[in-house]
């Protein structure tokens, strides 16, 4: 796929651009292509429907070249990480109701899906995992919890996320894992970096 078909490039400040893309998978593909090309940029931030190029050394060249970027499909060849999960989240019943199914079926669907980390955000090492179909998207909680424990596994929109550290949060919690997601002394410091394949397994 050529990026030219999706061109919506917006200037951001003095030396950054925001590129609109149709979905998180394309954002990941743009991020990976940028890394392959070695574009001289301080930060590249893929997100749900955009990619931010922040601190671009040669902005004119990037804006000129972007339409000719030949995007490979977002990698399905990244490292596979299993996330042992105890499905006892406080919102599991609500998710089952929203999905119009049973909690057992929620667990079966969630463990039967291969996810890919499309991007990270919200907190260091917090992965936005894609893989569930859009029809299973769920709204965030109307009022966020003041304290969500580290390791909580939750759903918001079409994404599955895992809280790397204790924080406030509005995702619908379906379970928890003991997997450590964030260790600053390690390289990379995040366990689930963009492009990583993820399988949730019953702990």
């Amino acid at each position, binding site marked *: 796929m050529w990026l030219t078909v999706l061109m919506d490039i*917006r*200037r*951001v*400040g*003095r030396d*950054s651009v*925001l590129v609109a893309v149709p979905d998180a998978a394309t954002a990941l593909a743009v*991020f990976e292509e940028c890394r392959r090309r070695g574009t001289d940029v*301080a*930060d*590249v*931030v*893929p*997100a*749900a*429907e*955009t*990619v*931010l190029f*922040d*601190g671009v050394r040669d902005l004119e060249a990037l804006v000129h070249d972007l339409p000719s970027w030949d995007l490979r499909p977002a990698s399905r060849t990244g490292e596979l990480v299993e996330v042992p999960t105890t499905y006892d989240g406080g919102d599991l019943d609500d998710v089952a109701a929203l999905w119009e199914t049973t909690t057992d079926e929620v667990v079966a669907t969630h463990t039967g899906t291969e996810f890919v980390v499309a*991007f*990270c*955000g*919200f*907190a*260091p*090492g*917090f992965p936005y995992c894609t893989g569930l179909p859009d029809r299973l998207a769920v709204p965030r909680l109307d009022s966020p919890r003041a304290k969500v424990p580290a390791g909580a596994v939750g759903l918001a929109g079409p994404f599955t996320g895992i809280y790397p*550290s204790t924080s406030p949060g509005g995702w619908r919690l379906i379970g928890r894992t003991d997997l450590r997601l964030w260790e*600053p*002394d390690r390289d*990379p*410091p*995040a366990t689930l*970096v*963009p492009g990583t394949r993820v399988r949730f397994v019953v702990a």
Partner: protein
Amino acid sequence: MRSLTVTEAGPLSTVQDRGRPGWAHLGVPRSGALDRPAADLANRLVGNDGSAAVLETTLGGISLTPSEPVTVAVTGAECAVTIGGSAVGYAEPVRVPAGATLRVGPATRGVRSYVGVAGGITVEPVLGSRSTDTLAQVGPPRLRDGDVLPLGDPVGAPAGVDVASARPFPRPALLRLHPGPRADWFDAPSLATLTGTSYAVSRESNRVGLRLEGPAMTRSREGELPSEGLVLGAVQVPPSGQPLVFLHDHPTTGGYPVVAVVDPDDLWLCAQLRPGELVRFSRR
């Protein structure tokens, strides 16, 4: 080991350098000194490389006692500086004897003072930076009374005092804006209001953002914006309509539209605005 003891940490004092850009894709904020020119000046005055870590204070100042004689310089927010109770110069290299107390007084103009120390503060870097990130809790914790900070070996000679020229602190502060990326989410009267009136700095301001109070901006469209990457200086407009300018500890992504971005040359002013002071925006 040469070291510096924090005898009185003040309300919020942190170690800061030029931050840790390059990790935003993992959700790690950039962090770093909010008033970069002042931090750079502090380093220059004591003969450090610009990448050395300095101390950043917030309104209340800090007291420090070195284990060995050291050269220091205080820049940024204006304040009284004393060594062993005797007044010494602001924004010039001064020598602190071993065991003497350097007192950086409360800010008399501006918010954040910087203390450069010859050799730099050499706490363990995290992801390539010694900066304290108050949002993501990356890097060293904020300073507490009694902390002992390691110092590096001085590399350069202290500069002459004549290199430090006073900066104007214009009031109201004028921040130049680059419009976009989401200016199209707001109606024309709101955009005119943003650049046509003054906003007051809110007490809720911190290292994450300069929060402003004034005429509310109204959106020209309904709906939610999917979270997208944020840059330093982004002027985000949450549902309240009150704009905020993201500073160095900003989150890497955000879900409210960014109407404009403050020019990098004006960001130091955002670091030095006190609650209640006025800000005006102009289109760059």
